[in-house]
Structure formats: C-alpha cells, structure tokens
C-alpha cells in the first residue's frame, strides 16, 4: 500500500486526526529548510506539504508570499525543491506533497515535473491555481507516475461540483476552511462543522483535510470532533521561522499540535 492511505489508516487506528505541516521550500535557505522539515517530521507531523516557491502566489497570504520571495532570491527553483524532497525522503517515510503554482510546472513541462517529483520521492501534488477545468493534464501525468493529485474545495463549491472534484482528487480532498486565503486565523464556527460534515458526505471514502488559517490547539480538537481526517498548518509554522525560532522549538510546537489532534501518545 502507498504511504498516504497507510498514514490515514494509522491515524484512524490511533483515533487521531492527521496533522499536515506546510513549509516553504528553501526558507530561510536550502540547508536550514531541510533541518526544519526533518524537525517537523520527527515531531509528529503526518504529512509534509512542501511549498514550491513562485513569484506570484495569488492564493497565499503575506507570510507564505514573504517566505516564497525570500526562497526565490536565495536560489530555490523546482529542481532545488526536488533535491530537498530527495534529502527528506532519504531520512523519512512520511508522505510528501508538493504544493505550488502552475507556471513553474508548465515551464518545466507537466510530465517532466511529475516524473522528477516522483523520482525524488514525493507522494502527491497540489496546484493552487489549477481548478478542475484546467487540471486534466496534470491529473493524467500524476496517474501515470502514481502520484496523488490533490484537489481543493471550498464552502462556495456547489455540491455537484464538489462531487466531481472529490472524484478527481486522490490522496485526500483539501477543504479550504474559510473564504479567504491562507495565513489568517479563524474560529471554528458551527458553519465550518456543517461544512466538514457536508464535504465528508460528498467525498465518500476520500479523506478530507482542512486547511487555511489554522494554528490554535483548540481548533484541532474542534476539527477532529467535526469529522475532519486531517488539518493543515502552514503560516503558523512559518511565522515562527521568520521570528527565528529554531527547528527543535518549531518541532515542539508541532508535537503539541499533534497531541491536540488526538494522538494516543499524549
């Protein structure tokens, strides 16, 4: 069995929710980026999403934009990201998902990009600006190489569309938990609880992972209660990195988050 379903199965067995940690590749530089990734992995993350920096990340908030710009300036391009994946893969068996924008993929060629990602040891790909209508090519390339092509849905996605997207998505379904973009916090409100239930229902057996704006421990518990299969934390980690918090301390924070996800080990 592949790493992704295994991981979800393990969490299920645990009675916990998967913790998905997002870090921008190459921030603050390639070497330290790897240190942070390893620390997050060791601290208990269940999935690692590695952000592929792009000059114009329209779907991301200021924190991810800042780290992306920084990483680009210090030379992080897709090939460097693959190298990072390779290094992480050498140390760990955690599911690795690349998250980025379409233009660098298009520039390299969808096939080449997916092949290299797979060879480096990635398990899946998310493309923030590639909605259903534009993702046929990437889906096919991923299928050929055995990578998950993870799609997104939001509270504005109509039910019929959500069913189709869930059918197209593999690995998990990425549920954007608020109307805005990444990086801003939000309270878990009754509507979100309903949204998760509704999405779970339409997604069938595909795990539903909730993202955008999460950082509070309380939120994790609420999400688990609402039935989410996973929660994504990104800006909250990057914010600490920007503030200079070292890898082990970021790891501690991840451990606590994972505990809030209901890990048996807490």
């Amino acid at each position, binding site marked *: 069995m592949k790493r992704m379903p295994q991981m979800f199965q393990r969490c299920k067995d645990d009675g916990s929710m998967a913790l998905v940690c997002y870090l921008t590749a190459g921030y603050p530089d390639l070497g330290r980026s790897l240190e942070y990734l390893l620390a997050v992995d060791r601290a208990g993350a269940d999935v690692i999403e590695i952000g592929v920096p*792009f*000059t*114009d*990340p*329209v*779907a991301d*908030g*200021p924190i991810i*934009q*800042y780290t992306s*710009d920084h990483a*680009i300036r210090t030379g992080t*391009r*897709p*090939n460097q990201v693959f190298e990072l994946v390779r290094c992480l893969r050498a140390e760990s068996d955690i599911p690795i998902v690349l998250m980025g924008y*379409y*233009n*660098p*993929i*298009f*520039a*390299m060629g969808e096939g080449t990009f997916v092949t290299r990602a797979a060879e480096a040891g990635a398990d899946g790909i998310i493309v*923030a*600006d*590639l*909605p*259903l*209508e*534009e993702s046929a090519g990437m889906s096919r390339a991923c299928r050929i190489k055995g990578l998950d092509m993870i*799609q*997104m*849905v*939001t509270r*504005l*996605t*109509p039910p019929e*569309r959500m069913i189709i*997207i869930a059918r197209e998505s593999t690995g998990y379904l990425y549920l*954007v938990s*608020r*109307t*805005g*973009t990444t990086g801003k916090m939000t309270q878990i409100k009754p509507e979100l609880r309903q949204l998760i239930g509704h999405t779970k229902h339409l997604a069938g057996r595909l795990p539903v992972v909730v993202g955008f704006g999460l950082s509070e421990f309380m939120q994790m518990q609420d999400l688990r209660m609402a039935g989410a299969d996973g929660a994504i934390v990104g800006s909250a980690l990057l914010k600490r990195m920007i503030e200079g918090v070292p890898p082990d301390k970021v790891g501690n924070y991840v451990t606590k988050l994972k505990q809030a996800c209901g890990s048996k080990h807490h």
Partner: protein
Amino acid sequence: MSRKGRYGEYGGQYMPEILMPALQQLERVYQECKNDKLFQEELEWYHKHYGGRPTPLYYAKRLTESTGGAKIYLKREDLCHGGAHKFNNVMGQALVAKRMGKRHIIAETGAGQHGTATAMAAAVLGLEAEIFMGAEDVKRQKMNVFRMKLMGAKLHEVTTGSCTLKDAMNEALREWAASVETTYYMLGTAGGPHPYPEMVRDFQCVIGNEIRTQLKEMEGKLPDLLVACVGGGSNAIGTFYPFLKDKGVNMLGAEAAGYGIHTGVHSATLTAGTVGVLQGCKSYLLQDEDGMVKPAHSIAPGLDYPGVGPEHSYLKDIKRVVYEGITDEHALESFVTLSRQEGIIPALESAHAVWAGVNRARNMDRDQVVVITVSGRGDKDLEIVHSQGLIK
C-alpha cells in the same frame, strides 16, 4: 476560439477554486448582459452622455505631412472622460456589477490609472470602490491617490512584497476570495481568467467599431493599417477585433521595448516573452526558464506589466497581428512630436503606438490610411517626461 475562454491554446481560468463560482457567475451574467438590449442601451447612454463617445477620428494633417507617406488618422481615446480608453471598460463592468447586485467593487492599480477610472465609474453609479495599491505606488502617485479619494473610493494600501502593482493585485485577489459573494472584481485589462479577456475586449470594441464607421464616412474605405499600444492589450484588442475578418486590414501592436529588447529591461511580452500562466490565464509572459515571472520595465506606467491578454498571444501565433517593441527613447520622441505638431499630448503608452504607426506610414503610399489609437492623454505623464530633461 477553440473552446470556451480559449484563444488557441491561450486563455483559460487558472484561478484558485474559491474564485471559480464567482467567475462562473460572472460568465453567466455577462452573457445575459451581452444579449440584453436594455443593458446595451444603458451602456450606450453612458458612453454618449457621460463619457464623450463617440471620440473623434482625427486626420493628423501636420503629422502626415511631416511623415510623408500614408494618411495618419488618430483615434482620440484621450478625449474620453477620465482621459483614457479605461473608461470603456470600467463603465461596462460597473454596469455588470450593478446588475449582479454587487455594490462593492475592488480593483488593483499600479500608477493609478485603472484605480481612478474605477473610482469614477463607481461614483457615477453609486457603488463603493476599494482600490488596492502598493505603498510604494501610493507614495509616487500622490495626485492619483487623491483623485480616487475625492471620488469617494477607499484606498487599501498594500505593504507586502515589493509594495507595487503585483502585490496590489495579489492582495486584491485575496480580498476577492474573502468576500467573493458581495464583491465585484474590476479587472483593468483584457487579461486574467475567463470571462475577463472576452468581456473587456467586448467593452473596448467600441473603439474599433467607431473607427470603422468614421473612416468609412471620411475616406470611404477600411484602414490599411491599425496601430495600438499593448500593455495588457485592452485598447489594442478593442481597436483590432472588429477588423479581424477584414483581410486587407493590417494590424500592428506596439509593445514597450524599454531600454531595448537586448538589454532585457523591457515589457515586450509578445516580442521577447515565452508562453506561461500568470494571474489567471495562459499567454506570453516575461519569465525565466524556471517559470519565475521577471519584472517588467517601461517608461509608460500602463505598459509596465510582464503579462499580456491571451487573445494577443493567439493573434501573434496565427500572424494576424504583428507586434513590435518600441523603446522608451522612441516613445519619448513621439510624445514630443505629437505635442508639438498636433497640440495633442499623448499618454506615454499611446506614444509607443504613435512611433510605430508613423514609422510604418513613412513607407506606405499617400493614398493609404493608417489609424493609430491614442489610448489616453499625457497629462499624467508630464512629471516623468519632465524628469527626462528633454525640454528645457
């Protein structure tokens, strides 16, 4: 168009899922508007009574004589209310927003042209406008900021990234994602995700349609050559589109070659760019081999953009339109020439088209006709040109 929202391989809807329902709604409503006589009549009313349309097609006698070739006509979009062709677009979109019941309009702006145009259209229809503008641009463009506020728009100063246009656009898209049900996003050119390129083109086609009627009246024939500057490409597509099927009409798009294509410091997307995907659509763009978008440069604020509308990419590939890079230096030269010979101070953007058009006209016959679209007036550019020290 091979499929919906596509121009050959170009165009599309490369946008986060969160915005897809809004784009689809817009597409639906816009199609309704397009076919609704009442909508079109209301738009025409604003064109005529508010915007000053039709704008003149002016035979530039002195310019023609000093050039010594084809007859040069200028399409006077500089006389539109607000001082540029931007009017055609914002007025149309503001009416669409109103029809959608969205009373809150957001728009990004660089130098402030699209921002002031948006503020204006919102004001006359009683809508709220919120303009996203980079903090650096806010500092540089004090008077345009004041203009927007004067017309009641709210300024949203963007302090992320380089604090310029690109960051303003990112922030505006974020804001749109956060409030998409009540907010209308007013895009400033014939680019971005479908249906914007089509909608903006349709709104700008009034330029070409008027040229056709006016030239018929004056010369009894179609133009031999149409020339317009290309930033995002809205005034150019509005000029060209109504003539695409007329075989005898040649077309020339003037891009910004900045310091010169060879220097790499330019905005000549079609002439020197490669195909990619930026801010919602597939098109030519300025990027490195890793797909990172490169900064653009032009002395004309409105041409200083690394992308271009998708339809132009298609028209380039099928060779229906020729695109040519015009340097800052040549644009400045035409800025001065047109001011001096015709008493018309063109926008620096438009000055690119003037140079390209005059250059072609020189080698054409005296009975041929070149129509150059003067997309806007140059009052906004006086400081820039002044700082070049050309005129003592």
